[in-house]
């Protein structure tokens, strides 16, 4: 069953009064439980595609279906609910809240789902344990390494058990050892939980881990590889 379907997706945006065609007719189909990387150089449109799939931005033209829902038909609030319940994000810059502890950062996404305080606490501890941060629950982001911060971001995305996790260059700010550990963690979760992972990357290590590679250049899919 496909969790993501895009048809003839176009995205134009204006940069310094110049129209940039970031995506030019991208059609892609991603099945539930895939561990997929969208690969391409900087400016190829891979992050834009990820943002459109994650309903963080709207397409200029084309159709996106996430878990059977055509996002073009959804109102702003419905899109927010879709993101809240079905999608987790991992960003290159982690995007943790600096003044919150690791535990609080993870808890934060759960508060939106209306869990009880006890449930939030239990799930957050569990998610941090899953990413190997047991005992570091009360550390703030600045007291952790880049790898540890990215693990917190993964735990935050995982905690609500979404169907889909979108990771925008998750290893870009990490050394290779930490990057590998992170990817191993994500692969492990993919296999255990059947969570769909979609990466945007130009990192060879990510490509090595990914089970499917979608190559993109100048806003168009140029090649696909399934391992």
């Amino acid at each position, binding site marked *: 069953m496909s969790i993501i379907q895009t048809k003839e997706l176009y995205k134009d945006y204006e940069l310094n009064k110049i129209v940039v065609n970031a995506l030019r007719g991208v059609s892609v189909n991603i099945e539930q439980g895939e561990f997929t990387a969208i690969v391409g150089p900087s400016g190829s449109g891979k992050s834009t595609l990820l*943002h459109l799939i994650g309903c*963080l931005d709207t397409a200029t033209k084309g159709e996106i279906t996430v878990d059977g829902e055509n996002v073009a038909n959804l109102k702003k609030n419905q899109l927010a609910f879709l993101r809240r319940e079905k999608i987790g994000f991992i960003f290159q810059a982690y995007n943790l809240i600096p003044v919150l502890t690791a535990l609080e950062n993870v808890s934060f996404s759960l508060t939106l789902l209306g869990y009880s305080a006890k449930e939030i606490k239990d799930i957050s501890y569990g998610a941090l344990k899953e990413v190997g941060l047991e005992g570091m629950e009360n550390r703030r982001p600045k007291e952790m390494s880049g790898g540890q911060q990215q693990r917190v971001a993964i735990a935050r995305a995982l905690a609500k058990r979404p169907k889909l996790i979108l990771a925008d260059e998750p290893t870009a700010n990490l050394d290779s050892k930490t990057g590998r550990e992170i990817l191993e963690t994500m692969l492990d979760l993919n296999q255990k939980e059947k969570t769909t992972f979609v990466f945007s990357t130009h990192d060879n290590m990510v490509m090595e881990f990914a089970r499917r590679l979608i190559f993109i250049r100048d806003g168009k899919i140029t090649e696909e590889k399934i391992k």
Partner: protein
Amino acid sequence: MASNLKVNLINMAFRNLARHKVKTIITSIAVAIGVALYIWMDAWLLGMNIDSQRNIVNYEVGSSKIYSKAYFDNKDNMPMYETFYNYQEIVDNLDKNGFNSTPRMVFGGSLISINQENPFMFIGVNPDLEKKMFSYHKFVKDGRFIENGKFEILLGDRGAKNLEVKIGDTVRLSTVIDKKVVPDRIKKEPFIEDIIKKLDENEKKIVDSNYYLTTIEELESKVDYYILKSDISNIEKDKLMKILNKIEFKGLIRHINQLIELTVVGIVNSPNPKTNGNIGYIPLDILQDEMGLLLEGGITEICIRKKGINEALLPDKSENIDVVKNILSSFMDVKETKLTVNGNKKIKSFTNFDKRITLNDDLILISWQEDVIDYLNVAAGDNVGNRLIIIILFVISFVGIANTMLMAVLERTKEIGMLRSMGMTDTSIVRLFFYEAGFIGFIGSMCGIIVGILLNIYMVNVGIDFSKMMENFGTDYGYRIVGYFKSAWNFKVIIASGIIATIISAMTAILPSLRAVKITIVEALRFE
């Protein structure tokens, strides 16, 4: 789920406030200062107004007053010829019914000492009744109060200083006695055309008898002037005056220069600056004959106040003019006329009375508010001005808060993007910032209220002593207060200022947060 989310937003708002402790504290302090300042100033203004009004009632006016109607209509010019006579019955009846009253003769002139001559207002009073009625006699700082039958004067402290006199000094009161008299001779034309034709038959007879006239024809047959009987009795004279007044014939005013020598026996310095200025209190009885003002028993006003009242309180319903009217109606012809709003807007805005009470057609009974309506208007104008200044300060502090909120929202644009990416709705984000700003406003308001109350405790019980400053300026700031300016509790304003500050504070977050959720999530996440 929705209700859970609501609770979570409040929790999140609290947590965010805790996260940004310094900002929360600074912004709360700004709110607190605004609220405390407002509470303090409002209480001060209210205190000054209440003190002023109390001083007006206790030292100057009483709770109500009776004037001759003609005097009241021209009160600002102190027309001493518009006197009335038969007041003893009024005083006695009020006394029997639990009211103090004091007849007074108010007139202007100048007071001359060896070194100075200054314009003064003089009040002829009955010392015994005056002491029962007003409290300024308790504040005779030098000497004693005036006594009946003696040519002596009690001066206001500032007035005495201006004149450079002390107890025992002799001063000369110089005034012009304006005496309304039934004219000896009336010119034919206006008399026939303007007066006689307006009279009814009975009134014509009275006029005729006094003018040796029996008919209009006889009047018209006279050549130039008509000679008035020289031996008419006072009663006839009164009746004639009433008729002449009724037809708006002012009669003739005779001006007589008068000089009265008086001994300064006391100097008063009461909490009401009006009693301490260029004012002189003189025994009423010495003004009656040719040695005084030729009053022949006339007075210009009667001040009225209920017996045994608490001076700290302003007059209540038990001594309003309706009560006085009811007492007087047993022996006087009382008429009540509705006042039109258009003609008497200012009176209506300050008093509960939208009517005019006349007694025997020629006297008028008014409330203390109506008597000092000009002061109340000026005080209200001052209040508006002062309140505007406070409101501007209030607004400035909230512009600061709005600015802080704008910066806070801008700084957290990336965080807003992250929250939206995690599935928080735009409405929830705006509400989150609304709650945060509201909590800041609430915390600030509570602190402001506490500080305001602490300031007020001091201001209500002790106040600020401005006596030296007022002495130096030689003025009274427009308020009827000397010395300590005290505040008064105004709990409605205290509560309202807290609520309003909280609401305004919460509102300041709406615009910046609406602006923040307008940009796309991707733009917000990239915001630096």
